[in-house]
């Protein structure tokens, strides 16, 4: 039987060679004794070679004597004989055991330390993290048993204040340090240098609230981009114009502060939108058909359905089924299920008003996406309509109230404050 080929290893059998003139009689008598033979090979001349179980070997001696055959033991195979051979080679055995022990021993050390940032690291250098980890005790060549992942996490977190979270885990002999950085609030609010608030856009001031600094504009003023709205240079109060006190006092000096405040202004934006006069509407009719394609690197086989879409107008949905990849190996065959959904196309001419409304909506939509969250829309106005054959273009003006203040550091003392 085929199965014996691998089972034979566990079976412990011996290979014998029987030589004599009445081999058939030998076989006959041996079979009566209950001996099992397998793989009997007729040798050249009056002899054969066979395999028998170890336990049967002793039974063969009387049989051989009786039938006047000679039995020779050729080979002993099987796990106990193998084990006996191994036992005689003590140093080999010791080497094997030593190797396994060494593997076990060495796998208890950290052989690689990797930093895996979660998200982009802006402030912390991964190499610095490795140094910090090494100081905390996590370095290449450390015994894993002496490391406590939780304590390491805590230690690294303490030493690197820019980190929000640290996770240390071991994957075999590799230590992974996962880190997440703290997100700091925007830098311009954290600064302490003297600064102005200047206009980022042209507009008309509608509201001004000064928290620090000196207002240079008032409600209703028109400002241009770059104008100082709240100055970081606080000028001393003017001398009394009348000067009736006559007491000059110590001359007050201008002070420099970081201007803070909110300046809201009306700002106008212009945008253009267009709309075709013909409206194309697509609707699903509910009809659909499926095509199953088997793709191999060489060609595609259609297993089911039609190779071409069966509808005049349709939407197509592809679903690709692949076997999971294993390491670098990607299974080269994939199944593609294409579903065609029939659609009906409806064409309609829009009136001029409808087209203009659509074009305006389109223009406003693109504008609104670029507005900041705190902007308040006050109104919109169409300022121009151009018509082309089959197309309407509309120019829209959007009036918005928003914060136009922009903090700008004073690098050099301002030449003159105000105007």
């Amino acid at each position, binding site marked *: *039987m085929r199965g*014996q080929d691998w089972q034979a290893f566990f079976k412990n059998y011996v290979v014998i060679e029987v030589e004599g003139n009445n*081999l*058939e009689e030998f*076989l*006959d008598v041996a*079979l*009566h004794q*209950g*001996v*099992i*033979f*397998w*793989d*009997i*090979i*007729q040798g050249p001349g009056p002899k*054969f070679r*066979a395999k028998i179980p170890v336990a049967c070997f002793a039974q063969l001696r009387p049989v051989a004597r009786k039938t006047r055959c000679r039995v020779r033991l050729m080979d002993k195979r099987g796990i106990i004989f193998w084990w006996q051979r191994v036992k005689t080679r003590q140093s080999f055995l010791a080497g094997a055991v030593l190797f396994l022990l060494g593997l076990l021993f060495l796998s208890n050390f950290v052989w690689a330390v990797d930093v895996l940032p979660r998200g982009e690291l802006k402030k912390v250098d991964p190499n610095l993290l490795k140094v910090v980890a090494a100081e905390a005790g996590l370095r290449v060549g450390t015994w894993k048993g002496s490391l406590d992942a939780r304590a390491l996490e805590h230690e690294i977190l303490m030493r690197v204040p820019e980190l929000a979270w640290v996770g240390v885990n071991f994957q075999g002999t590799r230590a992974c340090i996962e880190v997440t950085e703290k997100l700091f609030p925007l830098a311009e609010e954290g600064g302490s240098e003297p600064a102005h608030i200047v206009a980022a856009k042209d507009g008309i001031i509608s509201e001004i609230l000064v928290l620090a600094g000196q207002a240079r504009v008032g409600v209703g003023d028109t400002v241009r981009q770059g104008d100082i709205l709240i100055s970081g240079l606080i000028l001393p109060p003017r001398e009394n114009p009348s000067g009736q006190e006559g007491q000059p006092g110590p001359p007050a000096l201008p002070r420099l502060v970081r201007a803070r405040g909110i300046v809201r202004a009306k700002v106008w934006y212009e945008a253009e939108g267009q709309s075709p006069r013909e409206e194309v509407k697509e609707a699903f009719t509910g009809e659909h058909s499926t095509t199953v394609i088997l793709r191999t690197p060489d060609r595609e086989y259609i297993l089911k359905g039609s190779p071409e879409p069966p509808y005049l107008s349709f939407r197509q949905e592809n679903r690709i089924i692949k076997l999971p990849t294993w390491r670098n190996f990607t299974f080269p065959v994939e199944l593609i299920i294409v579903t065609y959904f029939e659609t009906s196309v409806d064409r309609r001419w829009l009136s001029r008003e409808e087209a203009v409304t659509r074009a305006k909506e389109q223009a406003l939509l693109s504008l609104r996406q670029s507005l900041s969250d705190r902007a308040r829309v006050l109104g919109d106005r169409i300022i121009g309509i151009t018509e082309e054959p089959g197309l309407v273009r509309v120019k829209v003006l959007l009036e918005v109230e928003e914060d136009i203040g922009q903090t700008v550091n004073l690098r050099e003392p301002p030449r003159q404050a105000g105007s």
Partner: protein
Amino acid sequence: MPVRQGKGRKSAEFVKAKDHMASFLDLPQEAVCDWPRLTLIGNSRLLLENHRGVVTYESGLLRVNATLGQLEITGKDLKLKVLRPDAMAVEGSIKSIKFLERY
């Protein structure tokens, strides 16, 4: 019921009666009558159960004792894959299987 004649030899009637009984009771005949059971797989493998010993074994010829008489198997590169007291498996390219007359 026929009586056994002599020392363990079965008479022809006894065998016949057993044969009848086996077919009447729907029992496998090879079990009741001790007949050899041959299972041939293609021409390359022969399973022979209920044999009574090997008479001749050469690479081209194999003679086996069985209840019904000798079985002669001819072929090329015949090999006794397994030989047990009650069964054997022969491998090789088998040309013919023949029942030799009882002598």
